[in-house]
């Protein structure tokens, strides 16, 4: 059986287009035009089974949202392969992508920017489905829209209103109904609760979990919040500077994180239940620029364990058993882990 989503060696580069003078540099006295390239995603591979929830976590600029939007083909990938149920969609054009859109939908972060302020709620929800079935089936689409609104906790009367008449949590429900309209097997959720108040956040997370059980949905769940991720994910991938540095089943990642960055992330997360982490890795400094990646390991500039090997050789993700993999030289030389 094919995986719902299979991503292999995904890379995403953005060419910045500043003025000529900004790009001008002198090498050995000769003027050269340098190309400014943001290395947003650098060879990320993972797959999601049907009905599975994979969370990508990391700090801002780690490329997790870019991965999501590249898979949803909002951006075209620079290289790598994307397969949906075994079908390679990497090079599909608009027309060929349309049937794929029925298998894969997206929920966005900002409940205020993700709904067109000039569209009525029922038109927003119906939009993906109308592209699939055509304008001829408006009557069936209207029935389905009403049912969807009811399923996410809104009513038919809400369908005639505009987005600004709703609170953040209700707007996110509308966004979820829109994604569900085509009965997708995969929903890409880009920070779906990070803009919401904590009590509303719980409502939306519960709704997403219920829908998963009801429709057998797989989620690619993007978040920076470890407590949210722990609640919703089956497996977790940790990203840093466009690289996947560790993947593991949820409980294993929280119980036994292997990559120093994962460990730092876990110990930095504030908690109202302070018993959780005893190990404390405090990071110094800041994330390097994605315009010029460090040589060797992407994390070595902030890693408390880094040694000379890390500057020369880039570690690759290696299997360390029980479904856990990490990209770190410490796995080969565990004696250097002196914490």
């Amino acid at each position, binding site marked *: 059986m094919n995986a719902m989503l299979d991503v292999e060696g995904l890379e995403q580069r953005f060419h910045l287009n500043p003025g000529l003078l900004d790009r001008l540099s002198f090498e050995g006295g000769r003027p050269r035009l340098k190309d400014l390239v943001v290395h947003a995603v650098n060879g990320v591979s993972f797959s999601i089974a049907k009905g599975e929830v994979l969370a990508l976590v990391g700090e801002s600029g780690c490329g997790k949202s870019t991965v999501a939007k590249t898979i949803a083909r909002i951006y075209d990938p620079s290289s790598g392969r994307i397969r949906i149920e075994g079908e390679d969609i990497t090079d599909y054009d608009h027309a060929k992508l349309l049937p794929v859109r029925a298998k894969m939908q997206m929920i966005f972060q900002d409940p205020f*920017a*993700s709904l067109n*302020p*000039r569209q009525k709620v029922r038109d927003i929800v119906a*939009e993906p489905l109308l*592209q699939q079935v055509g304008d001829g089936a408006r009557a069936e689409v209207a029935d389905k829209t009403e049912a969807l609104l009811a399923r996410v906790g809104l009513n038919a009367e809400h369908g005639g209103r505009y987005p600004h008449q709703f609170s953040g949590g209700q707007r996110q429900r509308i966004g979820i109904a829109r994604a569900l309209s085509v009965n997708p097997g995969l929903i890409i959720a880009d920070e779906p609760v990070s803009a919401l108040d904590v009590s509303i956040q719980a409502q939306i997370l519960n709704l997403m979990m219920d829908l998963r059980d009801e429709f057998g949905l797989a989620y690619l769940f993007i978040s920076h919040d470890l407590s949210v991720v722990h609640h919703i994910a089956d497996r977790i991938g940790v990203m840093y500077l466009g690289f996947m540095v560790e993947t593991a089943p949820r409980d294993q990642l929280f119980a036994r994180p292997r990559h120093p960055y994962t460990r730092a992330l876990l110990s930095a997360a504030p908690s109202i239940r302070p018993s959780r982490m005893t190990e404390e890795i405090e990071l110094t400094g800041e994330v390097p620029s994605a315009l010029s990646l460090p040589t060797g390991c992407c994390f070595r500039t902030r890693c408390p364990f880094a040694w000379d090997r890390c500057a020369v050789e880039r570690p690759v993700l290696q299997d360390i058993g029980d479904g856990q993999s990490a990209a770190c030289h410490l796995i080969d030389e565990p004696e250097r882990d002196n914490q």
Partner: protein
Amino acid sequence: MMQAFLASQFFFNWRRNLSAIIGSVIIAIFIVIVAFGPLMVAQDPYDLTQLNLLDSYKPPAWLPGGDPRYLLGTDGQGRDVLASIIYGTRVSAMIGIAAMLCSCLIGTSLGLLAGFYGGRLDAIIMRIADLQLSFPSMLIALFLMSAVGTGVDKVLIALTAVGWVVYARTVRGSTLGEIEKEYVQAARVAGLTNAKIIRRHVLPNVLTPLIVIATVQVGTFILIEASLSFLGVGVPITQPSLGLLIKNGFDVLFSGLWWTSVFPGLMIMAMVFGINLFGDFLRDELNPRLK
């Protein structure tokens, strides 16, 4: 509908803004003049059979020698100045509005294309716009008019050529902002074609700032048209606008026959003043950053 408007914040603020009220009243008066003007005066100034040369150069009615039939006096052909002004106002206002609509249509379309597709298309459109902005609009209009000749349609072409740039630039800027928004990305994920995305998601969200520009531009166009006509390259003598009336009266202005050009001048001033007052109010109301 009416009730909703009366209860809206827009109406609430309008009632508390004296210059907005004055502007609206002036505009309302001009709308009545444009719509029903010919019914309000006895004479059709361009029907030669109704003119009487014996009545030429009568001063306004309240001055010695004035004739109560001609409230604002008459010109050299015995035309009622008030009637000429009312007919001229129609021509001026129609040209201003029509040229605004043409500019808006062309400018908005080009701005949408430039902003949405970017790249070479964007570069070409915006460089033309930049080039155009580096010349005074009056100069461009004058140049075009002397090249294509006079006439109401030619004036429209000249004004549109001058006026589209401001829409294109504004729309391009807002479009660049809109296409970054998540609802446009959501439309892509929904599988909409670019044409549908532009029509349904981008266009409705870039229109609001254009309302202000369009309002003020009608005033500007009325002034430019008046200048062109005053310089003799505007509308033909058979369809005189306010600008042409001023020019006709200007020749005899210093012979003490001031009324033939001063009253049309006051009319232009009042019209543009009203439009600008109302435009300023709209600018404050519709600009989300000032809220």
